[in-house]
């Protein structure tokens, strides 16, 4: 490490010498600390008054920038770290984000105009409805990159020092934690925050949660969703329902393309039932052990994922894709099993890599990690790429049988229904209560025939109904 630091500092010193001949900029700012941010410290203002958001210190020697794009307009509410605008300085485009929670009152520059450093970019009312304390940050925070999903802001921003304190607002008998900006947004749309599923830390309702309800999208669920188009939650009741056009963007747009492509694949469907009682008993036994090992919760999914891998080991040609020329079945060595997840940004299918070589505990840990990252909008490209087989647990929302659409370039997928207690006859002919889960398989009928699908399903069901048989593979 010391050698590397030494190597680094030498070239930097040389670079400074190389750049010594650069002509000075016409205006040079007074020396500013390296921990500068993109906003000046705002003058203390009464909580309810608009205050200027100053453009300051985008870089040493930079006196002005061109305003390229606004991401907000007067009347918009913003959370801390929401994108405000993009500016250009010489050769750098820079996204500027808000250190405040508040409402935009006015924009001081038009797109294409030149903004001077040290002048207000806009004016913002920092305190929203309710006059809660802590609406201003104690110190300006540097802008934080917005993650994916334009145009909506994504994920609850990580709290910085002096980050806005969420305050409770009563919603019926239940207190709902949210920020002033979020409450203002909900109030403007006559939306009861108590009806919004919170996804923020500590059970906070975030601005994103509210926007999802207003746009008719589903909030985050703990695990799984159908591979078919997600069913939107009913929008909050409004005084007058009007027709509206919702642009197809982001993940929905990607899903549109994906499903259109998958529609060209002839799907073979096969359905069956699984008696889940034994598996549920195993889950009960393992739950506390998993908790003792640091896992937050232990559901049935890790067991189902592992059983899928065991069945694929017996039928490896279902863990495959088709070559571009259609002349080869490309059988994959690793079982990278995808689990469809309903996220704030839409349906995503991260996969657990190489399930075949993981222990059940490792599968559970990785699934938990993917679910947390999905909820936070932090899934990475490696998480989303390389899947070889997909499980879609629509049963988490409800339902029995489904017609899942294959997640290309894979060739098979399972849709899992909700496990319900139902009356069944046992082998002795007695009427008993059993917990039944429906499974709906779809497979690419160009390379998968009914017999293979049925045999695979039987093997898979065998592992789930008699979980002790999984031990034979250890």
């Amino acid at each position, binding site marked *: *490490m010391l050698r*590397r630091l030494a*190597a*680094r500092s030498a*070239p*930097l010193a*040389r*670079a*400074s010498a*190389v*750049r010594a*001949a*650069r*002509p000075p900029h016409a205006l040079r700012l007074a020396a500013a600390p*390296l921990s500068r941010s993109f906003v000046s410290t705002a003058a203390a203002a009464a909580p309810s008054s608009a205050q200027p958001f100053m453009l300051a210190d*985008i*870089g*040493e*020697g*930079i006196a002005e920038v*061109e305003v*390229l794009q606004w991401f907000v307009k007067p009347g918009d509410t913003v959370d801390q770290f929401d994108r405000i605008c993009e500016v*250009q*300085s*010489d*050769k*750098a*485009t*820079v*996204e500027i*984000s808000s250190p405040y929670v508040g409402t935009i009152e006015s924009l001081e520059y038009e797109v*294409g105009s030149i903004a001077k450093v040290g002048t207000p970019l806009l004016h913002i009312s920092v305190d929203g409805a309710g006059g809660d304390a802590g609406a201003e940050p104690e110190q300006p925070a*540097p*802008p*934080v*990159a*917005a*993650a*994916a*999903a*334009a*145009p909506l802001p994504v994920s609850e921003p*990580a709290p910085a020092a002096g980050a806005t304190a969420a305050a409770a607002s009563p919603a019926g008998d239940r207190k709902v934690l949210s920020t002033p900006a979020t409450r203002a947004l909900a109030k403007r749309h006559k939306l009861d925050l108590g009806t919004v599923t919170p996804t923020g830390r500590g059970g906070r309702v975030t601005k994103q949660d509210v926007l999802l309800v207003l746009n008719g999208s589903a909030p985050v669920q703990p695990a799984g969703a159908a591979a078919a188009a997600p069913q939107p939650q009913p929008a909050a009741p409004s005084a007058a329902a009007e027709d509206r056009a919702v642009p197809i*963007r*982001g*993940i929905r*747009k*990607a899903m549109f*393309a*994906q499903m259109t492509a998958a529609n060209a694949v002839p799907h073979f469907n096969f359905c069956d039932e699984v008696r889940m009682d034994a598996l549920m008993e195993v889950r009960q036994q393992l739950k506390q052990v998993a908790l003792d090992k640091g896992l937050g919760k232990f559901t049935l999914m890790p067991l189902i994922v592992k059983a899928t891998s065991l069945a694929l080991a017996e039928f490896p040609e279902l863990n495959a894709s088709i070559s571009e020329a259609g002349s080869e079945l490309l059988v994959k060595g690793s079982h990278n099993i995808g689990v469809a997840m309903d996220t704030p*940004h*839409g349906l995503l299918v991260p996969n657990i890599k190489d399930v075949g070589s993981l222990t059940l505990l490792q599968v559970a840990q990785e699934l938990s990690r993917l679910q947390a990252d999905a909820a936070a909008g*932090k899934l*990475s*490209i*490696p998480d*989303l*790429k390389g899947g070889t087989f997909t499980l879609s647990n629509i049963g988490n929302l409800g339902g029995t049988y489904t017609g899942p659409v294959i997640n290309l370039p894979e060739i098979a997928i399972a849709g899992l229904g909700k496990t319900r207690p139902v009356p069944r006859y046992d082998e002795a002919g007695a009427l008993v209560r059993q917990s039944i889960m429906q499974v709906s398989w779809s497979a690419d009928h160009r390379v998968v025939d009914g017999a293979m699908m049925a045999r695979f399903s039987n093997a898979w069901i065998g592992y789930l109904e008699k979980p002790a048989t999984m031990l034979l593979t250890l």
Partner: protein
Amino acid sequence: MASPTRALWLRLRNMPVLRMLQLEEAIFRTDTRSWFITNTWDAPPTSAGPERDAAHAAAQSVVLGISGKPAEMLNTEEVLKAGVPVIKRFSGGGTIISDADTLFATFICAADDEPQAHVPQVPPYPDPILDWTSSVYDAALRGCGATNFAVRANDYCFATEEGDFKFGGNAQSISGKRWLHHTSLLWDYEPARMGLLRMPKRQPAYRAQRSHGSFVRGLSQTLPSRDAFCASLAAAAGATWELTPVELEEAQAALSLPHRQVTRLLRPEEVC
């Protein structure tokens, strides 16, 4: 001993510039890791003729900065007549004309919430970024025997007795603590193609009103080969990041993730 910082190394070959920029933008906006990306074209035939023309035609494009105006930066009639695609990119900076003799290199640095990929000694501001990239290019060129690298008004140049000659233009995009710096480097160039660019209204002092053809110089006049330069550049970047080669598939997933997309091809009516 602390773990080394890591970056993914994507080596593109013959990727059209529009696609390359769209990929970079997608990675910059949706990925959180550090990346080093290069794009080179197969060397066109050295002799003039239809094969050489075809090789360049497949690769050529004009790339404007995010706020570049075609009428100000281009001889638009000639550009349209030549059928050269005009692209608007997501980063700032000036206009380039690229062909099969243009090399591209891009650094994308993770924000500080990715400690294994973040480079804390390069604060996410234009000058420190350019300082760091300059040091990398200086080291890369020295690795190929060239010791007269210089930075003039944000341009990468060779400093000679006859003056400073630009071989690379660069641009940046900064979002929070994540930054991108990309460079187009002239391996060689054709003066006729340079004629599609207008003399910019604002030009750096070192250019001294020289025409495009008179103030640029290809790397081929100094360096042994494209591949040698790219290898040397990777070695220089490797002083900061442990580079892990990845395939295109690793990067392409970013394209399907939702993100703001600025890079686009301009329609002919937008070029006029």
